[in-house]
């Protein structure tokens, strides 16, 4: 009898602990998304929060990545960060670059250490982490009638200046989307947030895109996204 009682309570304990573990794992996903298994889990990638260079499309990234953290360890600028279970759910442990905290300087060290092909080795100019989008209402040079400023910071810092960012006859910058790597240096160093009317908003945002190779990109796709 005594023995039986003890096994019963043990079973209860095991059941409860298993249930707690499972529910903890499940609550990290958005329950409303269980309707469609394809979108069961929502990717935490969004504007200014991007995958490191050379990443495979986002729908495959978290499946391939084994969260070994080697990309973050070799990154000399320490700009690669990792989601945890609170911010990423099942994406916990996958790398991201938040360009507002620290942009990617395209040293291309991370792509050579990835063991699972989540980051595929590629040339600097073939990187497509995202695409820069200039908000012309906020950019101080585009609003030069109002601000009287002529800033070309984004043009100066861009690693592909003149190719990815060009300036027109009024020194107003515009993005050549086919060539933009999405490294985010321009967004990081944009000074529009110091202009008092912008209330801390930066003029450039890096929007994530779904494709990688330069040849596959069509301009309409970028405009759609």
């Amino acid at each position, binding site marked *: 009898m005594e023995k039986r009682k003890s096994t019963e309570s043990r079973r209860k304990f095991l059941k409860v602990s298993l249930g707690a573990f499972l529910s903890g794992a499940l609550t990290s996903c958005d329950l409303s998304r269980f309707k469609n298994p394809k979108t069961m*889990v929502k990717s935490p990638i969004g504007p200014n929060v991007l995958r490191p260079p050379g990443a495979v499309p986002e729908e495959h990234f978290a499946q391939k990545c*084994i969260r070994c953290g080697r990309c*973050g360890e*070799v990154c000399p600028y320490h700009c690669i960060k*990792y989601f945890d279970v609170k911010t990423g759910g099942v994406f916990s442990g996958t790398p991201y670059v938040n360009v507002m905290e620290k942009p990617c300087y395209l040293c291309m060290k991370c792509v050579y*250490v990835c063991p699972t092909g989540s980051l595929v080795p590629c040339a600097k100019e073939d990187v497509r982490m995202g695409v820069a989008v200039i908000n012309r209402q906020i950019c101080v040079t585009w609003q030069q009638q109002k601000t009287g400023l002529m800033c070309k910071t984004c043009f100066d810092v861009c690693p592909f200046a003149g190719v990815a960012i060009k300036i027109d006859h009024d020194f107003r910058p515009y993005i050549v989307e086919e060539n933009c790597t999405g490294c985010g240096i321009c967004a990081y160093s944009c000074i529009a947030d110091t202009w008092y009317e912008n209330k801390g908003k930066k003029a450039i945002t890096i929007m994530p895109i779904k494709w990688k190779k330069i040849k596959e990109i069509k301009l309409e796709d970028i405009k759609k996204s």
Partner: protein
Amino acid sequence: MARKSFWKRITIWRYLFLFVCFVIVVGNPFTNYYGDINFIQGWFQSLGVGNLWVVSPLEGVESILTAKAFYMPSLVGMVVPVTLAFLMGRVFCSWMCPIEFLSMLTDKILGLVPKWGNKLKYRPDLIRLSKRLLWFALVTELLLTMIVGYPLFVWWSPPGLVGRETMFYVFYKHVTIELTIVVVVLLLNLLTRRMFCRYFCPLGALLALIGKWRQLVIRYDAGVCVGCKVCDSRCPMGIKPSVGESQSVYCWNCAECVDACPTNALNFTWRDKGVLKVPSPPVALGKKT
């Protein structure tokens, strides 16, 4: 009880090896962050040493299962651990795993308690489950992984988390809530020695499965055994070498029983020694006694 001299004990080398592995895994975020020395990167999900890289088998399999695509470098990375498991069984668990190092450390610290030291160190199991649970843990893990569509063990694997939390602490100066998994695993170890490793670890299950036909086994010599059952109490995996269980799948070659045995009835041996043994006639045995 005659004990082996200090340096002849295999467990001493095991503790040293565990310590070295732990230092490598915990130390490499420091060298990467402060020294920018990238010679060693990662931890036991994927460890890169120079140009060699090693991918843990279960994590690699999960990534293949969910991505439904092969990637050659990750397959190549799995060759070394799988070969090791084929040769020596679960030696990763007993000789390298940082969780085993921490569990071993808690055991040693408990052993320092005066009076009850030995009783705490070799504590009897409070919760004893069926050993077969290990296989179901592996199957459940793979099933859940494929249902969710994202690899799961890659983020909750306790040995990986030891490395990841250290890296988070060094690089980003915070730890995440996943650290609780490590703490829970170490607390389970207090209830039953290596409870997680015995019953729930899918990686251990996979390695044990591969190591079923391992070459390095612990041989039990019934002729020399005096039946003191010291080995049974010492075994952290809760198996009984004294009844010949030492060659079962559940043994992880940690050599605790080898060192504890007072009569050397338990010894490491390679299964195939290249010599055909002719069974000795029973007459010779009869003469001896």
